[in-house]
């Protein structure tokens, strides 16, 4: 069962966790999963990963190391975790830039200092921008509410769109990220092609996703945790066993590191590499459009 349909789902056959379904059914089922979990998404992430998902996402943005002025497209970005981190990151870089600049201008007149504050105030992000694109209305709704609640507004926009058929023009973005989303895409090859298309030449593709643990002992513990604990947490916290059963199965179905690397290369990306986190429970894949 595991060997047959691996990631590409070439024909009309696809997988939903360990079930065999048509592509259309898969999309529908996955939509319903996220519609159902949207409001509890963040709570569940914290519970299932004991908060470690936050570290994984921090590492992703640090690896990105965006400079002010970067244009980011965050796909499957639903509740905004990557987007908010991106904004925090460029904001702090920008603040440090401004402070450094001030230090070097100790001999300015008060008028000059005043003017430099005026100029910089309107660019606290330094023209950085992030577009969050997700196929699921409920997830975007949660994300937008979170943004309002946390005070994120500048440089942030939301689009309801399909990773396999992006509504963005060619060669537009500096960075494309997809964190814990590519696993839920039905045609991963199409999503990768679209990622390549919308990136500027020199742009970077970054994918954060559950991956393959090769250490046999750790793998056994991980399986135990995944299949015994996670669906129970799902039922207790979100009242939804089945969605989390799907989650666990979809992780098992997803291509391992080397296979995903090959798929990314097939889409045209160069210098493709990956970094395992927590022994491969999660991996960050990176590639460039050169």
């Amino acid at each position, binding site marked *: 069962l595991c060997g047959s349909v691996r990631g590409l789902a070439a024909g009309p056959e696809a997988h939903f966790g360990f079930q065999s379904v048509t592509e259309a059914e898969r999309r529908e089922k996955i939509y319903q999963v996220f519609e159902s979990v949207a409001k509890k998404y963040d709570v569940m992430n914290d519970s299932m990963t004991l908060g470690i998902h936050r570290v994984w996402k921090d590492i992703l943005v640090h690896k990105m190391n965006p400079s002010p002025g970067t244009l980011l497209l965050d796909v499957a970005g639903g509740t905004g975790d990557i987007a908010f981190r991106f904004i925090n990151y460029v904001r702090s870089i920008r603040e440090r830039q401004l402070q450094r600049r001030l230090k070097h201008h100790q001999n300015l007149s008060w008028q000059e200092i005043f003017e430099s504050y005026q100029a910089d105030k309107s660019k606290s992000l330094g023209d950085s*921008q992030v*577009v969050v694109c997700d*196929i699921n*209305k409920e997830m*975007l*709704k949660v994300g*937008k509410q979170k943004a309002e609640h946390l005070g994120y*507004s500048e440089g942030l*926009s*939301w*689009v*309801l*769109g*399909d990773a396999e*058929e*992006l*509504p*963005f*023009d*060619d060669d*537009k*973005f500096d960075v494309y990220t997809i964190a814990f989303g590519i696993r839920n895409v039905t045609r991963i090859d199409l999503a990768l092609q679209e990622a390549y298309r919308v990136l500027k030449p020199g742009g970077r593709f970054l994918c954060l996703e559950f991956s393959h643990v090769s250490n046999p002992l750790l793998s056994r513990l991980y399986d135990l945790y995944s299949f015994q604990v996670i669906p129970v947490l799902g039922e207790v916290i979100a009242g939804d066993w089945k969605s989390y059963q799907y989650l666990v199965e979809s992780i098992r179905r997803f291509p391992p590191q080397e296979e995903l690397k090959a798929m990314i290369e097939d889409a045209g990306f160069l210098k493709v590499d990956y970094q395992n986190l927590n022994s491969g429970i999660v991996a960050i894949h990176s590639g460039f459009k050169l």
Partner: protein
Amino acid sequence: GQGLGSGSGSGQGQGQGQGLGSARPQPLEPSLLRFLVCPLSKRPLRYEAATNELINEELGIAYPIIDGIPNMIPEAARTTRKKPPAEDSKQP
């Protein structure tokens, strides 16, 4: 005319951006128009303030903007012509 504050996707008269504390009928984030294209044809779109939609004239389809979020899923788009447009999106 002006959309009323029901937050159900009815647009304002002008296609203005931020400021004015526009909490209800949220207009489209104007910077988005730089990147957005029709997902089917990848061709530019026209923002129609009256209906708060993004129009692809060639294919005769319109994408709705709801709560300031453009819905760019092809299935969600409505046709703007009385007759349905030509089948394929591969137009010259």
